[in-house]
């Protein structure tokens, strides 16, 4: 499935490039309101049409990519930064440390990111930071579990025993031997959580728990489009396709990484 890897890389690159480009250039100014041009269908001047304020949808989608990608990326960072060390600790120490980490994981798992966002919003009011925190907190047990599950079988291998005979402690072995052997798996999981983060951000912004006006975001564009969907379907379809293609690209990339990195997937007895 090389084609999947290539397609994934292309789609992801387009999304990232659009987000980066939007910092220096967009076809139109997204802050400019032009009611006369509202809800125009796609045309040469506005390839994706215009929204209910007459803003260029292509420019909006580009700026929106910024929010979606940034929120998802930071949320993955939170998940990796806290979850991987916890998972490594649980696998290395076992016993009560393992128990505490895993029970903590179970507890956080009982709070879907939307519920976390609801709680944070109830306490502090809505903002894009809520979305990052909510998705990031939800990512922590995901990475902790993946790390622990993959680290445990490594700890039974003889090269770990050899490192112990060479006088190395558990922390050092975790960093020198266990973590590098998990890297490919974490990259794969990272792309998966990245794409889930984009979906979650869109959902949170859609219900008003994420990015707040005037920050454009794909989810918010869809929320605003909902009442106009029968009048001008493109305002609902364009941001949705942007989400689908970006998430699809990341998933294909993740699958491609896994196939390229996992020799176990090579042919087996039928």
């Amino acid at each position, binding site marked *: 499935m090389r084609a999947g890897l290539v397609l994934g890389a292309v789609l992801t690159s387009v999304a990232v490039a659009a987000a980066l480009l939007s910092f220096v250039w967009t076809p139109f100014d997204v802050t400019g309101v032009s009611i006369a041009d509202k809800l125009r269908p796609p045309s040469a001047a506005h390839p994706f049409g215009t929204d209910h304020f007459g803003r260029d949808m292509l420019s909006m989608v580009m700026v929106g990519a910024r929010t979606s990608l940034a929120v998802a990326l930071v949320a993955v960072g939170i998940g990796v930064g806290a979850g991987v060390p916890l998972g490594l600790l649980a696998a290395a120490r076992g016993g009560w440390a393992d128990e505490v980490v895993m029970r903590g994981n*179970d*507890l956080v*798992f*009982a*709070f*879907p*990111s*939307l*519920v976390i966002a*609801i*709680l*944070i*919003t*109830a*306490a*502090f009011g809505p903002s894009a930071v809520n979305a990052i925190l909510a998705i990031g907190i939800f990512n922590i047990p995901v990475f902790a579990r993946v790390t622990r599950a993959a680290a445990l079988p490594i700890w039974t291998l003889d090269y770990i025993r050899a490192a112990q005979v060479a006088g190395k402690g558990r922390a050092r072995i975790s960093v020198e031997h266990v973590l590098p052997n998990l890297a490919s798996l974490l990259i794969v999981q990272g792309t998966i959580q990245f*794409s889930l983060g984009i*979906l979650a951000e*869109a*959902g949170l912004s*859609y*219900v*008003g728990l994420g990015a707040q006006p005037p920050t454009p975001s794909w*989810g918010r564009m*869809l929320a605003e*489009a*909902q009442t106009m*969907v*029968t009048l001008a*379907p493109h305002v*609902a*379809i364009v*941001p*949705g396709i942007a*989400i*689908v*293609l970006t*998430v*699809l690209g990341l*998933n*294909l990339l993740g699958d491609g990484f896994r196939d390229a990195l996992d020799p176990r997937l090579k042919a*087996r*007895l*039928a």
Partner: protein
Amino acid sequence: MRPLIRRLISLVVSLLVASAVIFAVVDLVPGDPASFMLGTGAQPDTVAALRAQMGLDLPWPVRYARWLGGVVTGDLGTSLAYKTPVAGMIADRVQVSLPLAVLALGLAIAVAFPAGMFAASRRGRAGDVAVMGGTQLGIALPNFWFAMLLVLVFAVRLRWLPAGGFPGWGHPLAALKSLILPAVALALPQAAILARVLRSALIETLGQDYIRSARAKGLSRGQALRRHALRNALIPVLTILGMQFSFLLAGAIIIENVFYLPGLGRLIFQAISQRDLVVVQSAVLVLVAAVIVVTFLVDLAYAAVDPRLRGR
């Protein structure tokens, strides 16, 4: 039944800790919940009256204990916005949210199992590639956007099904009809995930030695898949099913907004916008408790499937 007792204890502990977290976040918000609810222009004595009414002048352990005691006896307090018992409000809303989640889960399973088994049995061939391509697309769909498209096609253009609203269970057929599109929107992305997990779990088990033994006994590929691989593949699939229930509940909160369904999700958003924290607190607790109970049930299901886990 020692293992069951241990799991039950751990269930109760999880529920207690989760309730404490929810209580802490909502009740210990920076600033005073009473003035937060009344807005910035409130009179000090109005705030003080509300504080006394809410019991906010008591120390927090006492407040937590009171709240928890209420929860256990089914008294979730009184809504500040509607002045009605929260328990009754939630009970009404659960009658929409729970059938929606169950319907979606059933739909997801009904689609995912045949698809996953089909793909696994034709690994690497055209059928597998087609199914896997479809699931990639399914996973990438934001359910609320998919819901909008469904409304556009099946409600606005074809007029087969209602675009939103809920007639109540007094009209069972109409009620069911109004849940179909939301359930499909929720189920399809989850079915895609489930089908992929089932396929890879099946492929993993099909590579095991006992499948070779089964083939050496004279079982065909299909028989080996159905009789030996499927049950073993169920173990990872159960884990995902348990997690999916929580995704479905969370997804339902969003989907209810697309379809204007009077479920738990709509209640929560109304409560947030009305600063009705008593309702938020209780509704969130119900959601989280549901997830924890489902996790507990999945744990029990493991033992039913895997004899190695019995008596442990």
